[in-house]
């Protein structure tokens, strides 16, 4: 035992010597080089004035293949386009978001964007402490003059999907799988109904909700039940459950419409289209608004088809031209403001 310990001590001492050399160098030259040059701007300085510094915060990983990833990719595209200095932090919890926002703001970033609904209150709490910094959030509240809140309508894209579903259904029954019966979900169901009604007065919606954002199996079972019940179009907007519902449609050779992102790869012949919520548009709108000065800070913007946040993915070959034309028309109607907001408190057909 003694020998063993001595060997360990020896290993430690040798290792310590080895590790000490680089560690001693670091404090000597690093801070000097670090303080005057916040890395990138030095190279860019001659070309233009100081580049805009934009920071973005995500609550999940940026590789989520959806919401956060779109935002991250948009940020990188903006970086190239406008020569921004960007930084981001991912997987930030609700408990630490305020510290992250303050760190960025204290670091002198021009725009700090929180890409998550649940960060809304934190952004509004931190923003008044840094009046010179602009804050953005994908949320529903902007209580300080340096905050902008960008939100999706969450129904305009569904309305377009409803137009497609209403025209494509033969049994006049459309299955709709969502997560809950919340006001947002009810708005979506009613938007689907309104869209379908435009070209099909006899349409019926079978609304099913899974109660969970990640219950793939339940979504699949529910979609299967609806198909057995006569539905011949499945529209799925149920988080991860969307995949399950489309899977059910695939097994029963039924048309499906996806949501959030383009789901055609799941069943290329059967997924007619997907109503896309392009979460990358938020940061783009915020940054371009800051550069062009055409956004009013201290306001909540609810964005939809007109602003390019919501739209339909490319149609598959099963969709005939007249449906495409109808969607075109519906899009134009919505941009012109002819489509009223659907009710959020009850089913329209009740």
């Amino acid at each position, binding site marked *: *035992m*003694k020998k*063993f*310990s*001595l060997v*360990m*001590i020896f290993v*430690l001492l040798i*290792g*310590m010597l080895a*590790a*000490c050399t*680089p*560690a001693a160098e*670091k404090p000597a030259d*690093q*801070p000097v080089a*670090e303080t005057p040059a916040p*890395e990138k701007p030095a190279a860019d300085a001659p070309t233009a004035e100081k580049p805009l510094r934009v*920071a973005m915060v995500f609550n999940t*990983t940026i590789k989520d293949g959806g919401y956060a990833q779109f935002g991250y990719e948009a940020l990188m595209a903006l970086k190239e386009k406008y020569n921004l200095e960007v*930084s*981001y*932090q*991912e*997987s930030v*919890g*609700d*408990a*630490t978001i*305020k*510290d*992250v926002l*303050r*760190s*960025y703001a*204290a*670091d002198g970033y021009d725009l700090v964007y929180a890409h998550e*609904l*649940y960060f*809304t*209150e934190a952004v509004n709490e931190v923003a008044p402490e840094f009046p010179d910094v602009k804050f953005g959030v994908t949320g*529903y*509240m902007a209580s300080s003059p340096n905050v902008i809140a960008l939100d999706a309508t969450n129904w305009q894209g569904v309305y377009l999907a409803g137009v497609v579903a209403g025209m494509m259904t033969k049994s006049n029954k459309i299955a709709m799988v969502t997560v809950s019966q919340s006001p947002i979900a009810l708005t979506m169901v009613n938007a689907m109904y309104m869209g379908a009604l435009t070209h099909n007065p006899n349409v019926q919606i079978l609304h099913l909700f899974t109660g969970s954002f990640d219950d793939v199996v339940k979504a699949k079972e529910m979609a299967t039940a609806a198909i057995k019940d006569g539905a011949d179009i499945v529209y799925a907007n149920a988080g991860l459950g969307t995949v399950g519902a489309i899977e059910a449609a695939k097994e029963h050779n039924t048309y499906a419409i996806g949501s959030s992102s383009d789901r055609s790869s799941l069943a290329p012949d059967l997924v007619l289209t997907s109503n896309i919520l392009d979460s990358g548009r938020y940061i783009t709108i915020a940054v371009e608004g800051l550069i062009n000065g055409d956004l009013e800070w201290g306001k909540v913007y609810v964005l939809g088809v007109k602003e390019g946040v919501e739209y339909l993915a490319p149609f598959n070959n099963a969709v005939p031209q007249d449906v495409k034309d109808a969607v075109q028309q519906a899009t134009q109607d919505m941009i012109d403001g002819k489509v009223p907001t659907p009710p959020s408190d009850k089913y329209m057909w009740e």
Partner: protein
Amino acid sequence: MSELTTPNALSIPIKDRVLQFARNNMGIVSTLISIFAIILALFIGGILIALAGINPWEAVTYLIKGSFGNRYGFGETLTRFVPLLFSSLSFAIAHKSGFFNVGAEGQLLMGAVGGVLVGAYVTGLNPVLHVILCILSGVLFGAIWAGIAGLLKIFLGADELINTMMLNYVALLLVDFLIQGPLKSPDSYLFVSATILPSAKLPIILSKTPLHLGFIISLVVTAAVFYLVYRTPIGFQMRTVGANRKAASYAGINIVWATIIALITTGGLAGMGGALELMGAQFKIVNGFSAGYGYDGIGVAVMGRYNPIGIILATLLFAVIRVGMGAMQRGAGVPFPLLNVIQGLIIVFVIASGYLTNKLSETVIGGRA
């Protein structure tokens, strides 16, 4: 001929000289070993960072700069320090009393619930009184939560490791339920609890940072707790029960009483950490209120060898890691998963160094330090 009678330093075998040095300077040696472990972990982490295509010096610079190098980061580090210190104290006191409490996470959450109940719903109090009541309520809730597992152990012999761990999940889901239902803030769109009143908020002690009064409270409480354990009769009883229940019983110590005091202390400390985090930093319970402080506290206590100075230093290290990791991501663009790897490396190395120090002290002293 004279060499035989008066051996000079050179003639002593090298092995004995090393041992002698180690014996005389055990404190310094063990500190050096810990520091070396951290450096080694950072060194390996640096290699990983370099493999990911990022300049490791830049990343390490941000780790230091982010947690100490600027005013805000410094304040943030000391703010993270508070709940970590309480949860590690909680684990350490339980350990001293022969009680394995891995439920600090749940007790901390319940402490925050206690804080919200008094902080948000009791109105019209003087700020000093309100803050004190809030903290006491947090202590009470934490103590009750630990008490459930403790009473099960005392009266039914149920294993407290399982019970405290399972109660973490109960607490987590209970808090989820509370912030979605009874405690939900009526004027928020999200599932968060009501915000505590301004009179229950702790004052900031360093302007332009989040550092709040809880930091000073935490240091005072640490001193008080170790005074209780090492300098009072009940502390002696707690430690004796912890060392050997049967011997303690034979010596006439009231085991139930000592265990109950230990329970109140351990649960109360975690609950107090939750209440202070609520009153100083977050002001309301959000989803994921405790970012794993209860679990990190176990590592901190082990790393700090259950002694006050060690725990304070280890807590500081964990807080620096927590804050610095964010800065590494923001400044140098180190990917988040890699940060978790480096954090794991530091913990593994430091705990391994603790083992090494124990072995070393067994060798040179013939017992544990």
